[in-house]
Structure formats: structure tokens, C-alpha cells
């Protein structure tokens, strides 16, 4: 039996050993052939040595998540084989260095492999192959083994080698031409070795539809991560100042922007801490440019005084909060969705804010753009709540539409405006709560802002009546946000209205949920899905309407307490009876969600806890 254009490939090995580059090459070569790709990485907070792995799922149809199944495993070390043997698909193959790794098949310690008679081992003579690439007086670079193994992968899959070559040349185009040449040679050697020695033995095949020749770039696919999409949205919005302090998993946004700093005219500032990041963003935004910072939980902890200042002084800033497991250092390189309450309530006092939650790369781009319009129109902080899984996973995506994306800078007090009015109060009480802001440098607009409660003029006031006026004014703006950013835009509903089960989720679980829904449909289970895209303002009416019409309600969250279900209860009064949670620091795969939902349908537990390696516990 041949399985065509549906392969789950994995590269695993020690951190710093070339797993990422190998997976990059594999994924990009698949994209070049018109295949859909989803790739996600698991790694330790470590520079060199610890086990890391990269899954790449290449598919003929639109996929948005990973599955816990591997057809072809590229093992850079024996640990990878031992760690992942259990999740090999029947008929799957393991590619490794047969001259370095000796798998003693009688050794019971080689867990999984010995018990698996249904998988194939491909011990390649990698050292010999690499040595054959070099002349007699050259010292062979053994890192080339990785390229040989990727090349061999495509040999087993009988993919068109010209696409592999094209991808290698594109990846190394900024290096010396000999680098690309040599990598092509190494990949070719692996490819040929697999074809010559294992022809027809492996059941998965990949075929290109040669769309590269047929389509112009804008009709083709990008291979993109959420963090990049977010940064692209911000660039589109006119971002000029981005500040950050290094932190996983938010740093890639800074690196991406830094790489494009000159061409996009964005200054990226690495500050002394996250306090300085958010504060310098406040200074830049106050002075009239679009400014942003991103961080993860530990850094966001430090940003709260700035967040409150931005809210009180009505300074438009955007903060990307890319979640990872906490509390404290937690698991720096892993996945979690546990900062939604934190984002909602962060800081002392009561302060209006907008919290936008993208669930896929397209929404990262849209929200990356729209967050600035909202921040500036309503003069308040906007938090974009993303996470490691969405931020760092690769996915194929169509080009983003740039239609109907207009920059709206809100009310600005120009010199002409002030002249016409005769005087200027920065915090003028208005019906909408929004007061035109003067940008420093504007004649006649001079004002003083303060983190103290203040008068319309901007001077410190502890007067009780002034306080009421100002609190009302600031919170009135939230009603305006609701009008501009209506509930229809803050939720999305997928699937049939009448369904057996209704799923509620937010953020990066979207891909796995959508893929799971398709799998469930094949099994005769009809599900629909409510995606919540904003925690503040909360789309209470729409959420309640959806929940009221649901037969069986299941919330799916990548955290311990199902935090969103609590918010929903608070905002709508509705109790969601079933929860599927995962708090092991890893994202949901679509198949794990299918299992969880089937468990709920079968036994009706109030909670299903999922974990890696098939862990499942029902309460």
C-alpha cells in the first residue's frame, strides 16, 4: 500500500547538533513542491547537548497541527531512537548512522525498538558517505551527515530531487556558493543511497505538483511562524520602535524585526530589562510613533507599572505576551496558555485595556496590525496574547491579504485644531471619553502628563469629583472599543450550528481543534467550535448565545485550571460542564483532542487531563 503525500517526519538529536537546520530544509523543500506543512519544535532551555526534536507534517490537504505519529524519523543520536520509538507509525522507518549507532536488537533496554517488529531500521553508512564527498587531503565535516539524512529522507519518499536542490540553494544564498554546492552534493549522496539500496521498500511517498512552475510568488505558499506574522502585521501598521529584553519564546519577534530594521525603518532596542522595554515604548508612543514590546510571563511581571501608567496617561502601546509555563521561570521553552487572567488583571488599580488573542498565523498578522489602530484610537494599552506553540510553529499559509487595512491614528490635536478651539486640555472630558492628543513638537499643544490622577489639563488632582470624572472617562472608552471592535470580530464559529458536541477554545489550540473536528467527522461525530479572540472587551452576548444552543459543551485549554471557563462563567453565568486540559508544557496534537472528546462523549467526565505519550486521566 502506498501512502501518498501524507507523511509525518521527525528529526531528533542533541541541541546544537543541527536538528533545526535539517527540519528547515525538509519543511521548505516540501513547501516548494506545493505540499502543506505544519512543523513544531520541542527543545530544552539549554545551549548544547539536551535532546530536542522537530516534527514536520507534510500533507496534501490543509493541516494546522501535528499528530503524535512518526512515519520517518531522522535520528542524529541513539537517544532519539529510544525516546521516539514508541510513537513510530506501523511501517515507519528510522534513519540513523549505522556506523556509529549499534542497536542491539536483543537488548531489552532498547525500549520500544525491540518490541516493534512493525517498523524498519535504515542504518546508513553515514561516515563513509560523508568521507566520500571529500578529497584525500580534506578534513571531512561530519555535520554534513545531517544533510545526507535529509537527502536520504527524500530518497525514501521518492520526492523530486530538483526541489531539494532548489531549496538548499535558496537557504544558503547569502553564503559562499560552495556551501550550497556542497550541501546539494551531500543531499544527493543520501538521496541516491536510499534509492539504490531501499527502492520501493518504504510505503510513504511525496509527490510534487510542480506548482512552483505554474504559479507566481503571491499565489504560492509562505512557510511562516506566528511570531513572524505578528511582526509583519506590526510593520504593516507602521511600527517604528520595538523594545525588548531577551526571553523565550518572544525573542524571535525582535530578531525578525532587527533583521529587517533598515528596510522597514523600525528601530529595535535591546533594553536593560523589561521595565525599560515597556517604558521606552511609552516614551516613543507618547511622542507619536507606533511602538511595541513583546515578552513572556516573567518579563510581563516586570512591565506592570508601565502598563498601568500607559492606561492612566492614555498612551497607546502594544505589548505582545507570548506565553510559556509558569510560575517563576517555569519551563522557558515550552507551551502553556496560563496568562489570560494575568493579562486581564495585571497591575494595581482598575485600568482599561484591550486583550486580543490570535489563534493562527493569519490572525497574528491581522491582530498585529489592528492592535495599533485600537491602541491609538482609544489611547490605551493593547495586549496581544499569543504563546510558544503559535509563535514558534511553522505552517504553510497563503499570502496575507493587505486589502482593507487602513491605518487609523485616532484623534490628534494639531496646531490648527488647537488654534480653532482657542485652548487645549489633553484630558478634556468628551462624550466618547477620547480626548485628542497633542504630539510633543506641536506648537500650542504643550501639556504635562502624569501617572497621578489628574485634571483635564493634566495637573495632579486628588479631588473626589475629578476622580469620578476621570475614571468614567477612561472606562467610557471601553464602550467605544466595543463599537469599533464588535462582538462579531471577537469570536469565530466553525462547524454546523447543530452539532453533537460544542468546543470552546482560544489561542493556539485552534489548529489542533479544527483538524480534530475533521477527524471526528470521519468517525461520525459532528462538532462545532467557538473561538474567542478577545478577553477584553469580552464578547459576552455571543459566547452566551453559542453556549445556550450547545448540546454538549467542552472547553479545551492548554493549562491546569481551564482559566477561560472561569472567565466565561463570570461574564455569562454559564457553566461549561466538560473540560479538556493539558498542562505538561506541550501543545495539543489533533489526535489527542480527538481522544479527549471521545472520552467525554463516552463517559461524560467533568475533566479530561491529557499528556504526552498517550497520557489520559479523567475526573
Amino acid at each position, binding site marked *: 500500500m502506498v501512502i501518498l503525500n501524507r507523511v509525518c517526519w521527525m528529526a531528533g538529536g542533541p541541541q546544537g547538533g543541527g536538528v533545526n537546520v535539517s527540519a528547515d530544509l525538509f519543511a521548505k523543500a516540501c513547501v516548494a513542491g506545493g505540499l502543506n506543512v505544519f512543523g513544531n519544535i520541542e527543545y530544552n532551555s539549554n545551549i548544547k547537548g539536551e535532546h530536542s526534536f522537530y516534527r514536520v507534517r507534510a500533507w496534501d490537504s490543509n493541516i494546522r497541527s501535528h499528530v503524535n505519529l512518526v512515519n520517518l524519523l531522522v535520528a542524529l543520536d541513539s537517544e532519539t531512537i529510544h525516546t521516539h520509538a514508541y510513537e513510530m507509525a506501523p511501517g515507519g522507518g528510522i534513519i540513523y548512522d549505522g556506523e556509529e549507532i549499534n542497536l542491539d536488537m536483543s537488548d531489552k533496554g532498547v525500549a520500544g525498538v525491540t518490541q516493534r517488529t512493525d517498523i524498519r531500521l535504515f542504518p546508513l553508512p553515514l561516515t563513509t558517505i560523508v568521507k566520500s564527498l571529500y578529497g584525500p587531503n580534506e578534513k571531512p565535516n561530519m555535520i554534513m551527515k545531517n544533510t545526507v539524512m535529509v537527502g536520504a529522507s527524500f530518497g525514501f519518499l521518492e520526492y523530486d530531487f530538483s526541489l531539494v536542490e532548489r531549496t538548499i540553494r535558496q537557504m544558503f544564498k547569502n553564503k559562499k556558493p560552495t556551501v550550497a554546492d556542497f550541501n546539494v552534493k551531500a543531499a544527493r549522496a543520501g538521496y541516491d543511497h536510499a534509492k539504490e539500496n531501499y527502492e520501493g521498500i518504504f510505503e510513504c511517498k511525496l509527490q510534487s505538483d510542480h506548482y512552483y512552475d505554474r504559479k507566481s510568488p503571491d499565489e504560492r505558499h509562505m512557510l511562516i511562524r506566528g511570531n513572524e506574522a505578528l511582526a509583519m502585521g506590526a510593520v504593516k501598521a507602521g511600527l517604528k520602535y520595538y523594545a525588548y529584553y531577551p526571553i523565550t519564546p518572544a525573542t524571535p519577534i525582535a530578531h525578525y524585526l532587527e533583521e529587517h530594521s533598515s528596510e522597514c525603518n523600525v*528601530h529595535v532596542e535591546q533594553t536593560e530589562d523589561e521595565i*525599560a522595554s515597556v517604558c521606552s515604548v511609552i516614551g516613543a508612543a507618547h*511622542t507619536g510613533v507606533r511602538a511595541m514590546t513583546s515578552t513572556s510571563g516573567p518579563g510581563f511581571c516586570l512591565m506592570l507599572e508601565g502598563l498601568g501608567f500607559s492606561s492612566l496617561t492614555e498612551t497607546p502601546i502594544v505589548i505582545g505576551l507570548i506565553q510559556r509555563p509558569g510560575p517563576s521561570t517555569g519551563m522557558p521553552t515550552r507551551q502553556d496558555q496560563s496568562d489570560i487572567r494575568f493579562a486581564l488583571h495585571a497591575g494595581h488599580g482598575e485600568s482599561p485595556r484591550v486583550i486580543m488573542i490570535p489563534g493562527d498565523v493569519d490572525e497574528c498578522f491581522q491582530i498585529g496590525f489592528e492592535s495599533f489602530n485600537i491602541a491609538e484610537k482609544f489611547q490605551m494599552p493593547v495586549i496581544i496574547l499569543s504563546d510558544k506553540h503559535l509563535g514558534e510553529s511553522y505552517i504553510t499559509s497563503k499570502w496575507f491579504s493587505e486589502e482593507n487595512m487602513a491605518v487609523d491614528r485616532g484623534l490628534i490635536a494639531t496646531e490648527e485644531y488647537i488654534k480653532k478651539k482657542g485652548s487645549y486640555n489633553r484630558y478634556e472630558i468628551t462624550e466618547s471619553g477620547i480626548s485628542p492628543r497633542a504630539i510633543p513638537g506641536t*506648537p500650542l499643544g504643550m*501639556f504635562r502628563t502624569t501617572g497621578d490622577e489628574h485634571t483635564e489639563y493634566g495637573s495632579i488632582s486628588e479631588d473626589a469629583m475629578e476622580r469620578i470624572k476621570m475614571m468614567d472617562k477612561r472606562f467610557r472608552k471601553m464602550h467605544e472599543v466595543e463599537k469599533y471592535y464588535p462582538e462579531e470580530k471577537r469570536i469565530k464559529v466553525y462547524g454546523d450550528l447543530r452539532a453533537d458536541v460544542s468546543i470552546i477554545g482560544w489561542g493556539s489550540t485552534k489548529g489542533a481543534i479544527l483538524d480534530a473536528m475533521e477527524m471526528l467527522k470521519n468517525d461520525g461525530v459532528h462538532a462545532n467550535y467557538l473561538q474567542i479572540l478577545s478577553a477584553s472587551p469580552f464578547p459576552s452576548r455571543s459566547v452566551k448565545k453559542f453556549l445556550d444552543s450547545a448540546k454538549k459543551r467542552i472547553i479545551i485549554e492548554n493549562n491546569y485550571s481551564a482559566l477561560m471557563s472561569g472567565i466565561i462563567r463570570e461574564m455569562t453565568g454559564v457553566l461549561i460542564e466538560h473540560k479538556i486540559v493539558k498542562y505538561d508544557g506541550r501543545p495539543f496534537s489533533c489526535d489527542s483532542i480527538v481522544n479527549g472528546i471521545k472520552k467525554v462523549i463516552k463517559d461524560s467526565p467533568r475533566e479530561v487531563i491529557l499528556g504526552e505519550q498517550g497520557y489520559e486521566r479523567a475526573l
Partner: protein
Amino acid sequence: MSEKPLTPADYRTNVHNNWCPGCGDFGIVAAIQKSLLEMQVRPENALLVSGIGCSGKTPHYIGTYGMHTIHGRSLPIATGAKIANHELTVIDVSGDGDGLAIGAGHFVNFGRKNSDILYMIYNNGVYALTKGQASPTMDKGMKTKSMEEPSIKEPINPASMAIQCGYTFVARAYSYDINHLSSLIKQGVQHRGSAFIEIMQACPTYNDVKTKEYFTPILYDLQKEGYDAVVKNPSDANEVREKKLAAITKSWETGAKYPIGVFLKVDFQTYEDYLKEKMPMMKEKPLVKHDISGIKITHLMEELTF
């Protein structure tokens, strides 16, 4: 834009001032206003940033743009503003607790950048607004009337620290000598790069040790005594090092003679110069003056297309 000559009234506000009678801060406000007037910096082109404490209220009393911000955070806020519009005259003022305790990390790292901002610390050794606790500059063994016990911590020498952190203009002033202070403010504003002025400020309410009577007999003007603070050849690493070491030594003079004036001035490429080299848009005009509508990201999408 009207270009009529500016008058003292252009730098005032009608905000009620609630500093204590006799506070040194009045002298500082007067000196800032005087120097801006003398340089004819238009009020709309100046941004005064402050932190929290008595010093934090300064912007409310000066008719430029002003930001009264968060405790210890005025410097990062000022740096963001400067990058957004590098043509603004940005002056940052803070107290000794503000800049040397809670904001010490920013004080250190701002110096490293040589960004074209003047930073001033009002140094009175106490946290006055919270009723007289010791600040990081209070002398060891000193006890003011509001303290139960004398301070048992070593003080920070702000001017010396500024030299070590990389500030390229470092001076000390005295809040009751308005003419001298305003002359230093002018030099600090006109200096290209990060300028720092430590202002010895007598707190008449909480510091009953370092009073006007304490300072008057011991202060002397470095420049009047012929001290040469200027590095002639900034690319001569030796000269820079020698001048910095001499300046540090001077800044530690104490006892019967306490120096005010300029300790160090060296002209290096500024942070803004570097950014202009990197960003063509910033070289042309300040980032804030560019239209941001209709930006296309085709090239970014193409780059990720395979």
C-alpha cells in the same frame, strides 16, 4: 509657526506649586527656564521627563511638553521619546532615590548609550516626599532629624558613577546658584551625547545636616580654578582614560573643598548618529514625521515563499 522671540512667560505654567518654602527645587526650575529661554528653545520642541518624588513635580511648573512618570523609570521613557523625535530637546530630571536606588539600572545603562539627552539628579540625600528616609547618597554615619539611627551604608557618588557609566558630559551644580546651574544646563543640552548633572540640593525640611549653611563655605567652581575637563582628541584612548581618571578623582574631593562645575566632556558619536546610519528614514527626518499609511509588506511575504 510663529517665530516671535520667546519670553520668560513662555516657560511658565499656572499650576500651583506645593514644594516646601525654601526648597532647592525652586532654583532648579528657575535655572531650567532661564537656560531654555537663553537658548531660545521653543517650548513645543522641549520635553521634560521626570520620575516620582518632589523632583518629579518639576515638569508641572515648566511650560514645555512634560511627562511626570513612574518612580525610577524616567530615563527609559525619555530614551523612547528621543528616538521617536530626535529633534526634541529632551531633559530628564529625577531625585537621588529615583535615579540611584529604584532606577539605578537605567542610570547605568543610559550612560552607555551616549544618547543626546540631559539627565539631572537632584541630590539631597533623603527621600523627602515619604518623610525623610535615607537615600543612596546619604553619607555613612549621617543622621537627619527624621531618622531613628544614623545611616550604616556607604553613599554613592553620582558624578563619579556617571563618568564610569559612560556619560560624556558630567558636571555638578548647586541648586541655589541659579546662574551657574543654568550655564551648566545650557552646556549639557548643547553637548551631543548623554549629559549628566548632579545637583546638590538642600532639602530644608528633612536634611538638617547638608544645609545652605553647610554648602556655602565649601563649594568652589572647578572651571574658575582652571580645571580642564575637555578631551581634546576623543579618538585618543589614552587621553580619554587620563581625563576620566582625573575627573573621578576630582569628583571625590570632599571636606573643606567641594567642587562644582564640569568634570568631564568628551565628544563621541551619539546614539542617534548610529541610528541615522542604520535607518534611512531617520536620517531624512525624525521617525514621528513620516507618514505610515499604505505600507506594503510584499517583500516580507516573498522572502518566506518557497
